[in-house]
């Protein structure tokens, strides 16, 4: 020995022993998958579980409404002869949240409104996610001039007040459900693109991407096997939260009379039609307001829970 080193013969023997011991200690058995792990962590987050149950409940109620909402409570789109008699009734056993100006049951309007509001939230988020993923991926992979162009474009989009931008767009293309999808969807891409771009850029720095390159893996393989699976978590989180945001934007638009057109019930139009009776018949607004509040909150909490659950480094602590 010239220089002291931890690596003498004794160490070598100890190595052999510890290696054997390590093997003996290691428990056998099926391994858990990462997504399975994430689900396990999500289950421990009570707020996220409550939020997920609430969202599932709303979806279930909205999807099955035709089967069990009693049509005798008033056809949600009806304007019958008994309209005047049933107009703006206070809450009763028959109408738990009263009736609206046209004698329609508020509860069933809110249930049917869930269909439209949820659809707007999901579809609009879907549109912005697809655009955002493509733009973010191009910016991050190709870098250079593409990165500059796309990111500056995103900056320009983000520089305008979002709601005003959506309103302006609706004013140009006209209102109606499809146009609400399009306006919210198209204008929502810049933030998704940014999130995805930064996720890719940080994943790209990892040694396992270099390892794949050193192995001779093709670009497609590196993206599909290494980069995408490791950057998609942030998008799942962001998209979940974005659904709540899109529902909120739709409500705001409908409230301004620029979104879903009556008699189609969306939560925003329900609030809008109830707002003038706020002081005398507040039940017209309370239920749709609560529906928006609870659903948007649920999506945000679920997104929060997902973020914690999908973080690989945060193990079962």
């Amino acid at each position, binding site marked *: 020995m*010239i*220089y*002291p*080193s*931890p*690596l003498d013969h004794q*160490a*070598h023997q*100890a*190595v052999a022993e*510890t*290696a054997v011991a*390590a*093997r003996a200690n*290691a428990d*056998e058995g*099926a*391994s*858990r*998958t*990462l997504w399975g792990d994430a689900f396990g962590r999500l289950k421990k987050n009570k707020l996220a579980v409550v939020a997920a149950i609430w969202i599932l409940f709303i979806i279930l109620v909205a999807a099955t409404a035709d089967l069990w909402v009693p049509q005798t409570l008033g056809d949600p789109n009806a304007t019958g002869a008994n309209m005047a008699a049933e107009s703006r009734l206070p809450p009763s056993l028959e109408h738990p949240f009263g009736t609206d100006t046209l004698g329609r049951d508020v509860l069933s309007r809110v249930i049917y409104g869930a269909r439209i509001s949820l659809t707007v939230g999901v579809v609009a988020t879907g549109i912005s996610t697809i655009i955002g993923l493509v733009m973010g991926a191009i910016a991050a992979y190709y870098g250079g001039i593409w990165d500059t162009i796309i990111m500056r474009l995103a900056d320009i989009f983000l520089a305008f007040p979002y709601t005003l931008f959506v309103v302006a767009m609706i004013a140009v293309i006209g209102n109606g459900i499809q146009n609400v999808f399009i306006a919210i969807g198209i204008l929502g891409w810049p933030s998704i693109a940014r999130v995805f771009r930064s996720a890719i850029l940080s994943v790209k720095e*990892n*040694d*396992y991407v*270099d*390892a*794949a*390159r*050193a*192995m*001779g*893996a*093709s670009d497609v*393989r590196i993206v599909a*096997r*290494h980069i995408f*699976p*490791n950057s998609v978590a942030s998008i799942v989180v962001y998209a979940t939260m974005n659904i709540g945001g899109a529902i909120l934007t739709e409500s705001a638009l409908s409230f301004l009379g620029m979104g879903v057109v009556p008699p189609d019930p969306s939560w925003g139009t329900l609030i809008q039609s109830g707002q003038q009776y706020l002081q005398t018949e507040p039940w017209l607004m309370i239920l749709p307001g609560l529906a928006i509040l609870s659903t948007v909150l649920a999506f945000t909490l679920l997104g929060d829970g997902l973020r914690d659950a999908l973080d*690989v480094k945060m*193990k079962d602590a």
Partner: protein
Amino acid sequence: MADKEPLLKVEHLSKEFPAESGMLMSRFAKKVSAVNDISFEIYPGETLGLVGESGCGKSTTGRSIMRLTRPTAGHVYFEGRDVATMSHKELKSLRREMQFIFQDPYASLNPRMTIGEIISEPLQIHGDGRTAAERNKYVRELLDVVGLNPEHINRYPHEFSGGQRQRIGIARAFALHPKLIICDEPVSALDVSIQAQVLNLLKDLQKQFGTAYLFIAHDLSVVQHISDRIAVMYLGKIVELSDWKSLYAEPFHPYTQSLLSAAPIPDPDLMNTRRRIILAGDPPSPIDPPTGCRFHTRCPIAKARCSSEQPEFRQVEPGHFCACHFAEPFPIKESSVEL
């Protein structure tokens, strides 16, 4: 050694990085000279240790050889073929022969893949002609060879410790039986006791497969343990290259001498009495390296000539190269440890 054909021949390799990404002034932007005109050879089955302090260009050298970054100048010949000018197709076949082991066992394994998938990925990429079942069997054998339980083939990296993960990385590097593996500080992220295990594993595998290593490290005792020859780098240049015995016994370059005199010894009496060469100041910035000999600003024996004239990388003894105008063997026997 000299009579054999080198496996890898690095000639005048340089790598510069732009220091500021000036959009308009890019032509005048400053450059970091990470690696500057270095040359060395690696022979089949040997281990060349590459030591130096942080930021001296060790890792950049390794990455340039693999063409994970493109060298700015110079050539890297692997079995006579120039890596720097290879086409994509040639590069892919090269990567069968040359593999990389990374420093960070946490960042080098994809957390979304099982270790079975990780280790068999190079086999898939290069189409080894095995069926899925044969591949599974082979990966299990490899796990056994590197000292892991083959039953853990379906586990994910986060279920393993740092040392175990490094073994996974080693199994992946050996999957195709490459001729050369570049080990970029493979043990510096591990505990000392685990370092010993991993180093011994690397040695055993080398004996078994006849693989050559370029072993990058900053720890002299680690390098000494594994290397046949050692190259010392300072600020992007190789200052001394020799077989490990003569380098540790008779270092010529004042930088090597000071490095060796700084290595700790587990004997307090010796530690207190030995002569230490303490270098003044910090390493100069590679953006603006000193003229002449890059070490002259901190060198205890520097003279006027050193700041104007770059020292030649010359042979001072058979097989012992040194880049210093005034290089002479350092009486390390008196000063540090008994031989």
